[in-house]
């Protein structure tokens, strides 16, 4: 029944966005296609993310009267987190309502497929905190953005955090760190960074792959038993996360030395494990909970103050909040573009410019209701990643709590790696990197 309600709300919300501007024609709407996965094995993660994004778009219409006076339109397409279906969804939606402003693929696999299409269709990609890390080099990846941070930055921030916990980076020497990763392009993303940093700081890295879906991980955890690592990083997705947490608890691994990527740190990952998950940590790039100003605004404008009703849509959960931040950054890119071309519907090319010149400071974040909830961000032609810092959150058995300050990635290591990977991509695909100093 909940599923029906959620689906119904999604459809109604999508239609409402258009209906809210009865006199509006396609050219008067700012269209955000939504590639969602509300069904399939990863639906528990897909639903809160999609709900967060949808709520922010609706809020933009209701609270702000649209973006620069232009009503926001959204339309969902169900990808089931399947790359092939995701690409079909993109093809179906990209030209609707006057054309897509940008696309959030919500899957590393789909992102990889859309990167070559983006310059052809002139639809920029915003893969916030996922996708191809090398896309952070805007000179090569003109149409792809992965701010506010990337997997490589996160991996390096984890190492910095572990260094702090061990009393200094020099104490990493001789420590054993295990990476348990989803055996996919996504799961393998942190390996080059962790290997590189292992060479610099002298820790011993062991990478253990877990095949999709990760329901059975006994062999992996037997290896952990034998290895006895000091720290474990988890780069999982879906059911793999909750099983890993339970297996870690079963071998009595100290949970406060077990850190998940930001896609391994939602309520869905810890709740099935019950008390066993207490103390488990995960990365994030925004705050936790439901008490920020943005939550007040959403409750007031979309749910008539009924927090229980809102919670049915995952209000305040980690992935819901991530959806809010994701949608906000996309809308702000449109607003940035409007500052140059005027308050009217922006094309994909104009939104791309907006993404590349995005500069959302503390003041603007506060106006939007995100004050103190996430970090200011500044994107440039060269740097599509933005600043890149990471927070660590910890599960206390009931809720997530922040347990660190913003941790800066080890940029002096990560950035050259990004540039090297981007240069290799450019060479493979005959792309001449842009001269950013010549860009307007």
């Amino acid at each position, binding site marked *: *029944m*909940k599923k029906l309600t959620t689906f119904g709300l999604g459809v109604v919300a999508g239609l409402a966005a258009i209906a809210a501007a009865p006199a509006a024609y396609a050219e008067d709407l700012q269209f955000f296609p939504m590639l969602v996965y509300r069904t399939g094995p990863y639906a528990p993660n897909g639903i809160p993310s999609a709900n967060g994004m949808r709520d922010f778009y609706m809020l933009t219409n209701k609270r702000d009267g649209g973006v620069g006076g232009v009503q926001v339109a959204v339309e969902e397409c169900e990808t089931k987190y399947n790359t092939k279906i995701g690409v079909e969804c993109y093809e179906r939606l990209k030209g609707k309502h006057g054309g897509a402003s940008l696309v959030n693929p919500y899957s590393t696999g789909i992102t990889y497929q859309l990167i070559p299409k983006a310059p052809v269709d002139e639809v920029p990609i915003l893969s916030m905190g996922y996708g191809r890390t090398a896309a952070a080099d805007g000179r090569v990846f003109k149409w792809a953005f992965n701010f506010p941070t990337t997997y490589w930055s996160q991996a390096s921030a984890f190492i910095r955090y572990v260094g702090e916990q061990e009393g200094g980076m020099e104490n990493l020497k001789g420590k054993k760190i295990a990476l348990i990763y989803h055996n996919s392009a996504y799961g393998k993303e942190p390996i080059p960074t962790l290997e590189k940093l292992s060479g610099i700081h002298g820790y011993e890295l062991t990478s253990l792959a877990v095949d999709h*879906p990760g*329901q059975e991980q*006994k*062999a992996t955890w037997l290896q952990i038993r034998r290895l006895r690592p000091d720290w474990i990083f988890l780069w999982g997705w879906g*059911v793999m996360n909750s099983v890993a947490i339970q297996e870690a608890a079963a071998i009595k691994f100290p949970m406060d030395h077990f850190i998940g990527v930001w896609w391994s740190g939602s309520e869905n990952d810890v709740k*099935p494990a019950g008390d*066993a998950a207490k103390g488990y940590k995960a990365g994030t790039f925004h705050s936790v909970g439901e008490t920020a100003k943005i939550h007040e605004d959403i409750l007031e404008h979309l749910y008539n103050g009924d927090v229980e009703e809102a919670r049915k849509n995952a209000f305040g959960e980690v992935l819901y909040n991530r959806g809010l931040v994701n949608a906000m950054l996309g809308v702000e890119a449109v607003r940035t573009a409007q500052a140059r071309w005027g308050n009217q519907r922006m094309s994909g090319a104009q939104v791309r410019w907006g993404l590349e010149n995005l500069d959302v400071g503390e003041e603007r974040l506060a106006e939007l209701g995100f004050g103190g909830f996430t970090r200011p961000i500044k994107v440039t032609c060269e740097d599509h990643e933005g600043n890149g810092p990471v927070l660590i959150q910890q599960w206390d058995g009931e809720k997530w709590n922040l347990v660190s300050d913003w941790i800066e990635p080890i940029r002096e290591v990560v950035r050259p790696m990004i540039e090297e990977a981007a240069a290799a991509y450019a060479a493979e695909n005959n792309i001449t990197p842009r001269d950013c100093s010549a860009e307007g």
Partner: protein
Amino acid sequence: MEILTAIFFTPFAEMWEGPVFFTEVVLNGLLTGVMYSLVALGFVLIFKASEIFNFAQGIMVLFAALSLVGLMELGIPAWLAVILTLVIMVLLALVIERVMLRPLVNQDPFILFMSTIGLTFFLEGFGETLWGSNVKRLDIGIPKDVIEYQGVLLSQFDIIAAVVGALLVFGLAIFFTKTTIGRALRAVADDHQAALSVGIPLKTIWVIVWSVSGGVALVAGIMWGAKSGVQFSLSLIALKALPVLILGGLTSISGAIVGGLIIGVGEKVAEIYWGPLIGGAIENWFAYILALVFLLFRPQGLFGERIIERV
């Protein structure tokens, strides 16, 4: 030479040098194997009685677990929720027989197989519509602590699951050999036409066997759901049962058990001792390789009925 040493010498040396760890690997493999057998049993039951390879067995596991948790979330006590879920699975069997199987009597088994694919998609959507897509915690009170003996660590949960699996197999064996219905089931499995000619009602038998299979799916759903939470991925556990079926044969309950144990141990040992040679994550496909190797020598599976055809 180095590669040959890594393949043919080093793993065995590691086993010899670490007998306690090797014992732990084998015991954990056996316990995991029982969990695979639980899922494989559902396939075997239906195939024995109707020669249908039930593609929907995995989704039945999910559907049963979703129904159980859904009922428990409504405030119904666990014991009553289990009974009500069994009732739901019997009702499902009735509907499947009436709507899906009856119109397809005497059709080629492949057509029946295709109909179970349709059933999979239906149950997938119906289950999600009814109970939602969120992850649901299933806590039926089974302890999840570990027992350590002489350095070997075993999960209490896995041990209890293995005992439950063993009891289930024992119960099914009694049911099939000692009861009238069980004998009728075996008669139908041996020869549909002959069974019909002596008055065994095929339709009733199908309802019974799908109901029993639904019950087995519920037990598998409880055990796997309690481990990982009840969510869509539970249906994919059927993939783990396939090599067990290839190895044990589609018609043998004991084959499902022995096959599960061999696959469980085989994949764990392979992953831990040979996996690192090629980057790990070999256990999924290694299970199939192991099963196929057995097939080279026994095409009908370890305990499957021998294939004899007149030429």
